[in-house]
């Protein structure tokens, strides 16, 4: 006790923290880069403007929806109805647009609808303690059935050109790309720097501890579902306005693609961890793989099998990593 030992506070450099904190995101990003290089060397047409634009713009709505889904999964829940919801939003939006309402109404009303629906789902989950998978399963039936019985799956055409926000280009880049990038950044900042964002991680990680820390778990749950509704709403508008017509049906398997993007991007299905940047990168990775298979002359029919293997590999790696770290 004679000489005071000056202790060295152990810590990590910014770079180390970045690598350990964003491991999965870095892996996904590097995979995208590697794919572009390898496929580009094999077939340079892969790298031309049109193709890159179609990879990014055509799938931006999936990335936007995956942002909200990631928040839901981080909070310890799941939403299997998001695909149906996006179909419903697109149809409401298109119907409003062709019925002579102002364009902004056609954009805004469906988004508000989406927020309301999801807040309702969140309330059932939070206050009535019904598992989210059950509520959203029911919601899926209601939305899908309601859509088809109301429209008969008809096509909406003659949409006003000003409505087509997803077809706009700024500096030669399609607008959905801007939506995707800006919303991802905003959501990432929100998740990292606001109390609400941190509360989502806390509630998903250990709901008892969150309550003991004075957080209102129920309100957080409703809030995160409402936020998810916002992102699903925007995704629905992007989906509705990317083509000249809107088909009033539910895009097949969309919910699974969205959930998968979140999970591949590093969001643990067990809740409490993951980022929205990862899910956006994963959505881009899927689109890139899909396009790459075509350019590599691999039959597009094998796309889903490749994705399936990819999910499985990611999940197994995650479980093995987890078991080692605890």
């Amino acid at each position: 006790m004679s000489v005071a030992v000056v202790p060295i506070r152990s810590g990590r450099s910014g770079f180390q923290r970045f690598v350990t904190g964003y491991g999965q995101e870095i892996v996904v990003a590097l995979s995208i880069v590697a794919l572009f290089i390898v496929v580009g060397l094999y077939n340079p047409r892969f790298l031309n403007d049109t193709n890159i634009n179609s990879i990014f713009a055509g799938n931006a709505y999936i990335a936007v929806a995956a942002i909200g889904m990631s928040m839901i999964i981080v909070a310890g829940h799941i939403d299997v109805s998001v695909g149906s919801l996006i179909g419903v939003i697109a149809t409401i939006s298109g119907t409003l647009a062709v019925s002579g309402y102002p364009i902004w109404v056609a954009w805004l009303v469906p988004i508000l609808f989406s927020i309301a629906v999801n807040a309702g789902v969140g309330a059932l989950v939070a206050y009535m303690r019904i598992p989210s998978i059950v509520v959203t399963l029911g919601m899926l039936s209601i939305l899908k059935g309601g859509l088809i019985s109301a429209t008969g799956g008809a096509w909406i055409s003659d949409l006003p050109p000003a409505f087509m926000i997803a077809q706009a280009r700024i500096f030669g880049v399609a607008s959905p790309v801007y939506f995707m990038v800006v919303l991802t950044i905003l959501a990432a900042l929100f998740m990292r720097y606001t109390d609400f964002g941190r509360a989502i991680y806390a509630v998903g990680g250990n709901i008892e501890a969150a309550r003991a820390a004075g957080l209102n778990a129920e309100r957080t749950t409703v809030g995160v579902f409402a936020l998810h509704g916002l992102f699903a709403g925007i995704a629905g508008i992007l989906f509705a306005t990317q083509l000249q017509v809107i088909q009033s049906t539910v895009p097949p398997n969309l919910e699974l693609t969205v959930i998968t993007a979140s999970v591949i991007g590093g969001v643990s299905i067990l809740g409490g961890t993951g980022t929205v940047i990862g899910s956006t990168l994963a959505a881009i990775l899927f689109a890139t793989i899909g396009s790459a298979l075509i350019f590599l002359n691999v039959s597009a029919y094998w796309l889903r099998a490749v994705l399936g293997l990819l999910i499985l590999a990611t999940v197994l790696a995650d479980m093995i990593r987890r078991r080692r770290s605890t």
Partner: protein
Amino acid sequence: MMTEPAVTLNQVGKSFVGLKVLSGVTFDVRPGEVHALLGENGAGKSTLIKIMAGLHKPDEGEILVDGKPVSFSSPREAHHAGIATVHQELLLFPELTVAENVFLGQTPKTPWGGVDWTRMRKRAGELLDSLDSHDLDVDARVGSLSVANRQRVEIARALSQEARVVIMDEPTASLAEADVLRLMDIVRRLKARGVGIVYVSHRMPEIFALADRVTVLRDGNHVGTHDIGDVDETKLVSMMVGRAIDKLYPVKQGTSGETILELKDVSYRSIVRNISFALRTGEILGIAGLVGSGRTELALTIFGITPATGGAILLDGKPVTIGSPGAARDLGIAYIPEDRGLQGLIRVQTVTENIALANLKRLTRGLFVDSGKALAEAKRAITQFGIRARGPDQVVRQLSGGNQQKVVLAKWLATNPRILIMDEPTRGIDVGAKAEIHQLMRKLAGEGLAILMISSELPEVLGMSDRVMVMNSGRIAASFEGKDVTPEVVGAAMTKVSARDAA
């Protein structure tokens, strides 16, 4: 020295669904004192500290902070009043970093209102430094930390809330000895800062080393509050149990027969290391040791949950391989696990279903479970063991701890075991049921059953065992027989840090 209490509970009472768990208890903590709270499980300690922490509202009585009456409707309000809790189950977020766990819910903010990560990490570092925990990385995921380090995170969390009173609920229950010493050092630092500490523990040496005053509860009532200098261990124990301790245990018979189970150099990874001993019929062999000493892990290895990775297990002199609990059961080995709610029982199922669970093979006639026979066995068990249940169809969740333990016992005795391993056989059980279980154990041993008993309670080990083995760091540190067994020698063997492991 007589400062005004920081927090006072005055004549508080609390009932749950008509059951009175606390009545007329008065308790206070002064700044800079350690006030130990003692009592058996079910005495009302946890209810009392939950009332203080704002998790429960008292039905009667009042809470005073600095002499002024307050009413907490949430843990958050208790935090604001300066009361923080270090929970036994460590309420932390495993996926988040140390820094965020310390500050969650009250994070430092940047001027534009966002979470200030830089400042948060720095302040978390400072808090941990003040707890002499310089080695704890503020960026580490809490899920990757040891129990002792998680506990330091919780203590840092309490300090970050400027807590004036810190409630510690059995903080050393799952710590290794070296960590216990460090924790005691931290408690003294808090005390020096003027923080009042409510210290709940069963471990007498800690209480006598740390506490200024001690309060004992029994059956929800306040038995007494004394300065630590005015009491000794015997007095405290008799206050806790309400009678003298030597009447607690049945008379030993000492009629052990021949060796039935023999372990030779049995190991499981590096957790159970080179264990050799023999268990004889008709004896109770007690295993003492701290949590983490490998005693439960040894039981799990014998029972086939974590099959041995080395050495040999001999049953009746013949080597056997025990690869699963099913295999252990078929060899006549039964295990009454440590965690009744998680490992012992299916709480949502009935008494009958639980008792049948380990005996499905025997209860099956043809392809089907003979539910009449299962019911008859459950009824017989209820009478035989005096299980206080409404009937065999009652869901076990609704039974008291002692009766739940009897259901677990009944389940395993129905398999007609020859070797019974009991891990903490009386944890969380009231005094009456405890004595019943002890008598039953003695009776079973008298009938020729070989019993291996693991216990954290030294009096239980000494009172029940014919022989005692002490485990430490995965090894058998010492064995005692007959008059050699004294609390001192057993305690010394438990806590001795062997040179091999310290290095």
